[in-house]
């Protein structure tokens, strides 16, 4: 224990710590409860005030009471204990209090570490590029505090210290890259703070409440993996069928009673696709199959609406074989399906009726109505965004005519409702769309973030037909989802992408180009940074020709590559900082050694002038040359004139010197 540990903190370091910790906490303010933010800010204000008037600093008892108050504040605003949000709220409150307790250099370390931790938690809420920049700048600043603290006396130059810590981070970058690329990624969480029971796993539910979700959390957790026995279906054909929703009150969509009929015999229009699915535990009874199922796994049965369910909920990972048709005709509709497929809620508004009447007036048949509706979604200003505004009691009306921004659930439920209004039997289908292909394992990975909702309408000639209104608005969602770029829209927070056939001027075109550029950068960001998963890691290893690196070997490779990187860094750092005898001194030493061979050895304690005197005494014949050399040496060495010409002539003088 060093004495320094107990030394009081200098005022400048203390101020720096307060500022940096507040800066590290600020982004949390946007999603924390106001009361938590206020508590934090009050602690900071007290700390700042006590820098001016030290008697304001709370004692041990008061600090304890404040901690209790902070705890109560958190529990009042966050009723759910053991959730990630509660933990962040608690941490932010306690960080504020910790500021009141910084006294010595020892506390400084703790506070800096808390700062690092706080910065890491920011990524749970915001994964934008600018946030990474913000975190790096603050990490460098916190590191700068450590740099400054480890000096004996303050450097008095904060800018220089900041540059130095940025340089340290830059040197840490290669190590970081090696660890990032090679650290073995796991496919699932070790434990989950947010879902104590298994049914809370993010993913499909058995109902949709439109407008209740203002943000879809994209979880890269794997939902299931698929191995195809034959050729794979094209990405836009990869619709994985889950629960079918029939009943609605205008806001909620639920499955309702299961259909009583057996599934109708299908008339397949395409060859059968066989595949194996490894399903992660979901806590639900349904199993996923490719649209539309032909043969279903054992212990499962197909309901009348082609939903496949098991007897018991799935709590363990299961693997099953199934086969499907991509093109089909389900034929006739049953009276029960007809009745339920046309049910309408009570909150149909006049403008909804008008809209549907408009479509019907120009349509020759039901298919035309469907196309009219899709054209409406495509041509009007509908936006696809993962952060739609909250909707009120009549969400469909509000969505169709006012907000016009939403994700698949909004489009699917609105479309279904409007179809029913037009007298076309329809239902909402939930499931997954897409999947990421892993060439190494030769399988498709479908993630929770691939969850999707679409619509099915019954047309007399075709039977139940899948219609995906989201595809009309945001074809990218369907075409690109196999690249785990569903998060694409997340990157464009607050600036929803517009997918409409509107005429753009030159400026508009430029903006569009710019948006494509931003889009491309975002796509790479999502693909290579945020979406760097187990699959992508093995794909990268494959590309690098390092296929054998898997699991434990990958970890070993990480250690080896990191060691090599550190070794190279060490050599570079040593080389840069080695003791360099400067050229002038080296030349002078040569001059001395030439004289040494003639028997005039310079003594350790002898300065250049004394040495010169002795040389002149012993060898008057070389007096001139030796004097010139010594004088120039003194000039170069002690007058801080680094004249390049002088250095060069000094060098040649010494070279020509012949005692």
């Amino acid at each position, binding site marked *: 224990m060093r*004495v320094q540990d107990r030394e009081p903190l200098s005022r400048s370091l203390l101020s720096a710590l307060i500022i940096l910790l507040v800066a590290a906490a600020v982004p949390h303010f946007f999603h924390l409860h106001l009361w938590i933010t206020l508590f934090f800010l009050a602690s900071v204000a007290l700390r700042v005030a006590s820098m001016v008037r030290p008697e304001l600093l709370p004692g041990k008892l008061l600090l304890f009471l404040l901690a209790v108050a902070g705890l109560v504040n958190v529990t009042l605003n966050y009723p759910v204990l053991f959730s990630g949000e509660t933990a962040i709220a608690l941490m932010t409150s306690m960080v504020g209090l910790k500021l009141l307790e910084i006294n010595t250099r020892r506390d400084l*370390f*703790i506070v800096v*570490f808390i700062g*690092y*931790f706080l*910065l*890491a938690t920011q*990524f*749970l809420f915001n*994964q934008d590029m600018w*946030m*990474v920049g913000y*975190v*790096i700048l603050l*990490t460098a600043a916190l*590191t700068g505090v*450590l*740099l400054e*603290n*480890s*000096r*004996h*006396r303050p*450097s008095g130059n904060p800018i220089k210290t900041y540059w*130095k810590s940025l340089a*340290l*981070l830059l*040197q*840490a*970058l*290669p*190590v*970081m890259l090696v*660890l*990032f690329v090679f*650290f073995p990624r*796991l496919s699932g*969480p*070790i*434990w989950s703070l947010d879902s104590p029971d298994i049914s809370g796993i993010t993913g499909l539910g058995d109902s949709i409440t439109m407008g209740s979700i203002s943000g879809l959390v994209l979880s*890269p*957790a794997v939902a299931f993996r698929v191995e195809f026995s034959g050729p794979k279906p094209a990405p836009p054909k990869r619709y994985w069928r889950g629960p079918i929703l029939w009943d609605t009150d205008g806001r909620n969509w639920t499955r309702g009673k299961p259909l009583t009929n057996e599934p109708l015999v299908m008339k397949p229009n395409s060859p059968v696709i066989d595949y194996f699915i490894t399903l992660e535990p979901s806590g639900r009874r349904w199993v996923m199959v490719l649209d539309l199922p032909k043969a279903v796994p054992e212990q499962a049965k197909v309901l009348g609406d082609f939903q496949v369910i098991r007897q018991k909920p799935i709590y363990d990972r299961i693997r099953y074989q199934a086969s499907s048709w991509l093109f089909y005709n389900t034929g006739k509709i049953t009276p029960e399906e007809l009745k339920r497929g046309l049910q309408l809620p009570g909150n149909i508004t006049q403008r909804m009726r008008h809209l549907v009447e408009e479509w019907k007036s120009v349509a020759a048949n039901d298919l035309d109505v469907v196309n009219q509706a899709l054209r409406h979604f495509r041509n009007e200003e509908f936006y696809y965004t993962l952060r739609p505004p909250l909707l009120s009691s009549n969400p469909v009306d509000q969505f169709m005519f006012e907000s016009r921004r939403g994700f698949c659930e909004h489009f699917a439920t609105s479309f279904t409702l409007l179809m029913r209004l037009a007298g076309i039997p329809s239902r909402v289908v939930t499931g997954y769309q897409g999947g990421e292909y892993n060439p190494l394992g030769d399988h498709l990975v479908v993630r929770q973030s691939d969850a999707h909702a679409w619509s099915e309408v019954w047309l007399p000639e075709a039977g139940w037909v899948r219609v995906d209104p989201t595809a009309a608005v945001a074809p990218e969602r369907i075409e690109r989802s196999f690249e785990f770029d569903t998060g694409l829209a997340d990157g464009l927070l607050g600036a929803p992408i517009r997918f409409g056939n509107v005429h753009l001027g030159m400026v508009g075109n430029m903006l569009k180009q710019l948006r494509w550029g931003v889009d491309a950068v975002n796509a790479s960001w999502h693909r290579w*940074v*945020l*979406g*760097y*998963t187990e699959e992508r890691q093995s794909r990268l290893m494959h590309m690098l020709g390092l296929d054998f690196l898997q699991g434990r070997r990958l970890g070993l490779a990480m250690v080896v590559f*990191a060691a090599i990187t*550190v070794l190279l*860094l*060490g050599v570079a*750092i*040593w080389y840069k*900082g*080695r*003791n*360099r*005898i400067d050229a002038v001194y080296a030349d002078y030493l040569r001059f001395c050694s030439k004289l040494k061979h003639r028997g005039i050895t310079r003594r*350790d304690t002898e300065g250049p002038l004394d040495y010169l005197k002795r040389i002149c005494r012993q060898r008057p014949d070389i007096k001139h040359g030796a004097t010139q050399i010594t004088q120039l040496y003194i000039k170069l060495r002690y007058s801080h004139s680094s004249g390049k010409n002088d250095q060069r002539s000094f060098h040649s003088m010494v070279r020509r010197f012949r005692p």
Partner: protein
Amino acid sequence: MKIKPPDRIIRISHSDPQGRARIRPRHIYILPTRYGVIFALLLLLLLIGSINYANNLAFFLTFLLAGLGIVATLHTWRNLVDLELTIGNSDPVFAGQPASFTLHLNNSRDGERPSIQLQIDNLPAATTDLAGRSRDSLRLQRNTSKRGVLPLGRVTVSSHYPLGLLRAWSYVEMDATCLVYPKPSTTRPPATMQGYDRSSSGDKGVGVDDFVGIRPYRPGDSPKHIHWKALANERGLQTKQFGGDRADRLWLDWDSMPGVEREDRLSRICRGILDACDREQEFGLNIPGTELNPSRGQNHRHRCLAALANFGETA
């Protein structure tokens, strides 16, 4: 955190005959400090969190900080490597007083070397920040308890720059010594020293041969005997006294204190020397093995005290 490996296996740099030592790359040890250990725990926590939330940006920050820790190891090591130490002067002290050793540090590199710490045993350390291409001197103090030659011992040169998470150190054995005189006794040696002082009173002011001392000026004193130098030093008017061959030459004699224990005897003689010097009296020293003829002045004082310090130590 300090560990003490057995002397046999640790690497120690030694100073060369010119009293210089250079810290060589392979002589540097490095271990995390307490904060370094906490930092490692933080990294572990961050890693577990990153894995759990499968959050690649959290991985990014975790690995960046891990890289920072590794880079800091290299920098901490580099902060010491090729640092040069040179032995400086150390003034003799009396036993009981702290001995202070001066060590010169030389940074012959363009970059700075902040937070260089020197320490012997567990005594208070001396720290400095060395700028690029600069020298600095640090003093290390060591308590003394007995007379003799006090070696500086093993110096631990350490640094925890740049982050304070790691501490690099190196052992340097410097050939520096400090002479420790005996502690002056409170008991004066016997007023009348046995031996060969020919008269206890002398013939002050009567003879003309040898200078024996000074006394305040009295009217009638010869101007030739006025101590002009003392006057110039503003010590008042004083008269130099000269005596004949019966001058009062003080002999500090080992044998004058029979029955007194050895170290105590040396202490008392030490007191006698100091008193004699205060009175600017001429004195000689006679201890077994060493006999120094009566003289005066700083050099004589040092020679006598050194003889006491080294008594019985060397052949």
